């Protein structure tokens, strides 16, 4: 089920909410948890019930392994070491991901290298497998290190399946989630949390349905016609995708955080105005923050620990390897590997830059960072290297410049230099509105506060002074505008980009 659908907003979410708190009100806490599991599995199955057994098997397996690891020291009948159990668990999880997500990719590449003709399996990617597998890997590692323990299967199932974060994160840790589900205080309706939830959900819905989906039309058409783009179209295509990706994914995350807040559950922040970053290290501290935390803790740190003596060069090598893996996690394509590699390289350069304390103007630093990210997203979006290179070569080719025809009277001398005048955004199906939207996109990501910062308005005492009253009332009104804008634009239902990863 999509967050941006009538059935979710008007049926599923209200029913889940009211029944959950009704059961808690009647002190049926186990039933209320069971209700959350049931609704979450329903939410998951709405898409394709065929994968329900897969997620259930994954949950049961990981729960059993974690219980065995946790009870290892007390139970003398277990003859397998804790480490072996962890390895077994990791192999299972990675194997599951490898089979469903990477098998065809592996076969394709084997065929290319060996010249063989092994048939592809055409396995459909089960929804959310990347996210629920990562979350459970983290849980197993934490169990092994004695940081977490979960005795109840029902609680463990809530941890994995809680519907707001099940499909595309934020990636949560057991230790930050389960105390919230156990807290007695959280079993009572909390109007402050409901207000915050509605505010952030409305912003997220607007970001996704109105902003991201608008940019999507130009990005999609632009990448579909990569071979024939002129210089301005190519830049408009790449910027459109960069904005689409941010507003889409952060919009999804906002909706997830908002929906969870209704149940008094606080999910971690996932985006902190990433396009304001002035360096690659800064960017990855602001972009998909829960993934960055995961790869730092569970990939980068073990690699670094494996080195006998750590040097900056070795740490940077570990960074690049980590990002290559993170890139591949996004999907079975060399394009994602290139995306990961470029970002790892960018971070490494940023670290060396810092080490040698080279000063750079902040605006220039932002300019370089944003454009670097924009270019890496071309690889992230392109299906083939050829497509990416076509877009990039158009972005940097001055042989093919078409300016809006309304400028012809003022700039006609430019035609002597091979510059044409005409419909400048024809191949991306754009018009003057495309330029306006792109400018608005920059203003939104650079000037405005992000959704998390907007929650501050609800944390202060609104009766403080006249301006705080105005701010308080207008936040309610603008959230309503965002909700109405989002809901009344739902006619064209579209999927979230991160559902594919």
């Amino acid at each position, binding site marked *: 089920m999509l967050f941006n659908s009538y059935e979710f907003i008007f049926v599923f979410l209200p029913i889940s909410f009211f029944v959950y708190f009704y059961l808690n009100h009647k002190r049926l806490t186990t039933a209320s948890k069971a209700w959350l599991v049931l609704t979450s599995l329903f939410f998951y199955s709405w898409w394709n019930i065929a994968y329900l057994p897969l997620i259930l098997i994954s949950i049961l397996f990981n729960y059993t392994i974690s219980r065995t690891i946790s009870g290892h020291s007390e139970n003398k009948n277990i003859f397998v070491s804790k480490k072996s159990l962890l390895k077994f668990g990791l192999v299972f999880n990675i194997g599951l991901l490898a089979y469903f997500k990477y098998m065809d990719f592996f076969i394709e590449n084997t065929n290319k290298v060996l010249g063989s003709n092994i048939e592809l399996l055409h396995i459909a990617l089960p929804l959310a497998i990347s996210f629920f597998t990562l979350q459970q890997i983290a849980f197993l590692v934490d169990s092994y290190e004695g940081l977490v323990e979960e005795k109840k299967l029902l609680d463990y199932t809530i941890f994995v399946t809680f519907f707001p974060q099940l499909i595309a994160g934020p990636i949560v840790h057991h230790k930050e989630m389960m105390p919230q589900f156990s807290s007695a205080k959280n079993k009572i309706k909390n109007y402050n949390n*409901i*207000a915050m939830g*509605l505010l952030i959900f409305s912003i997220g819905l607007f970001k996704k349905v109105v902003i991201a989906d608008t940019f999507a039309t130009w990005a999609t058409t632009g990448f579909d016609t990569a071979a024939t783009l002129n210089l301005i179209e190519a830049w408009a295509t790449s910027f459109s995708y960069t904005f689409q990706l941010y507003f889409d994914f952060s919009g999804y995350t906002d909706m997830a955080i908002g929906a969870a807040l209704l149940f008094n559950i606080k999910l971690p922040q996932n985006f902190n105005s990433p396009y304001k970053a002035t360096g690659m290290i800064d960017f990855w501290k602001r972009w998909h923050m829960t993934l960055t935390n995961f790869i730092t803790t569970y990939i980068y740190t073990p690699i670094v620990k494996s080195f006998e003596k750590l040097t900056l060069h070795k740490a940077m090598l570990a960074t690049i390897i980590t990002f290559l893996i993170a890139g591949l996690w996004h999907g079975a394509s060399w394009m994602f590997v290139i995306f990961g590699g470029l970002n790892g390289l960018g971070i490494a350069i940023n670290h060396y830059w810092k080490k040698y304390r080279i000063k750079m103007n902040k605006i220039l630093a932002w300019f370089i960072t944003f454009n670097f990210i924009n270019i890496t997203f071309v690889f992230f979006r392109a299906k083939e290297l050829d497509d990416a290179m076509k877009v990039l070569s158009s972005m940097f080719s001055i042989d093919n410049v078409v300016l809006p025809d309304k400028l012809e009277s003022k700039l006609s001398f430019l035609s002597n230099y091979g510059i044409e005048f005409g419909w400048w955004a024809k191949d991306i199906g754009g018009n003057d509105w495309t330029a306006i939207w792109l400018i608005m996109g920059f203003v939104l990501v650079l000037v405005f506060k992000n959704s998390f910062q907007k929650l501050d308005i609800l944390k202060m005492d609104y009766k403080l002074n006249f301006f705080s009253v105005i701010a308080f009332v207008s936040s309610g009104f603008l959230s309503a505008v965002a909700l109405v804008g989002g809901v*009344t634009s739902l006619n064209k239902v579209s999927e979230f980009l991160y559902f594919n990863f």
Partner: protein
Amino acid sequence: MNGKKWIQIFIISTLIIISLLALFNYKIDSLKLVNKKGLINKNGFIERSTTDLSNNKIIAGLGNYNERYFNRRMFEKFTENKDMLVLGASRSLLVRQRNMKTDYTSFYNASVSNAVFGDFLNMIYAYENNLNTLPNNIIISIDPWLFNDGNPENRYLDMMDSFTKMSNKIDKNKSMKSNYYLTRYNNIFKIFSFEYLTVNFSYLIKTYRSSYKDYFIVDSVGSDKTVAVKESDGSYHYPQKYNNRLSEEITKEANTWLKTDISQFQNFNKISNKKIFENLLQYLISKNVNVTIKLAPFNPIIYNRLIVKYPLIIEVESYINQIANPLKVNIIGSYNPYKYLLKIDDFTDYMHPKEEVINNILNEI
């Protein structure tokens, strides 16, 4: 913090905004979805333009308007039966009276953009309902996507009631229930749409701009070559810029189009709507209408690729022949451009044949 207070403001604001949105959309209702007396009627665009067209005027500069309602109103203004009626989609908009080899005494081209069988039924129903008879001759231009159930085009549902009645007329064995209320419900739903708000808003701005004219009358088809022109026989003229396009430009456009998800051919994996087509033919023949089926050729640049991606296009043509021949229904044209030795620049774009190509096909009647 006072969450309850904020929630109250949020809910009240939501209700006010939704009400204002719906009220605005209802009041303007530029596409006449629910409010038949909306601004568009006050402004009387359809009323004025159909009157002018009925009085043999040539109208130009038409913007976005409901072609289906336009034709229905035209039919209401016909005082006598037409000798020839043309039904089709945008690929038959250039069929005109003076280009016909036969000298039809009266003629009207009722083609509408992206027409499907439902539109043909609505047109025939409206025509017969107003004149109590049918034209002596009808050309039906059939595009292959008319046989695709996955084609999302559903504007014919705006006239659900006439569609239901006509469906029942042509297929007496199967009584269709009118979904009038369902359509009305769908339209009411659109009143709450943000997208419709933007449509109405731009319509309103356009309408109240002092220089704005929703259309204007011209003396001859060539007097303003910058805008589309509609003749009194219902046929169109594209703006001049579409008539002399370079084949490179058309090729580029075709490549772009082919890379998109072509909505007309979505999920085109079987020939659907056979019954409706066969019943429609039978019905017209039973009413002594002389029916001609016209198949407009595709631009070779897209035909080559379409028949690979959607091989059913070839099957549709054979199927039409197979049904029409025993009924002695004349078929003119072909989807295959090579039968007429057509080149890329015989088309105004990747899809629409130029007038000369259409005339050449009409000569087969």
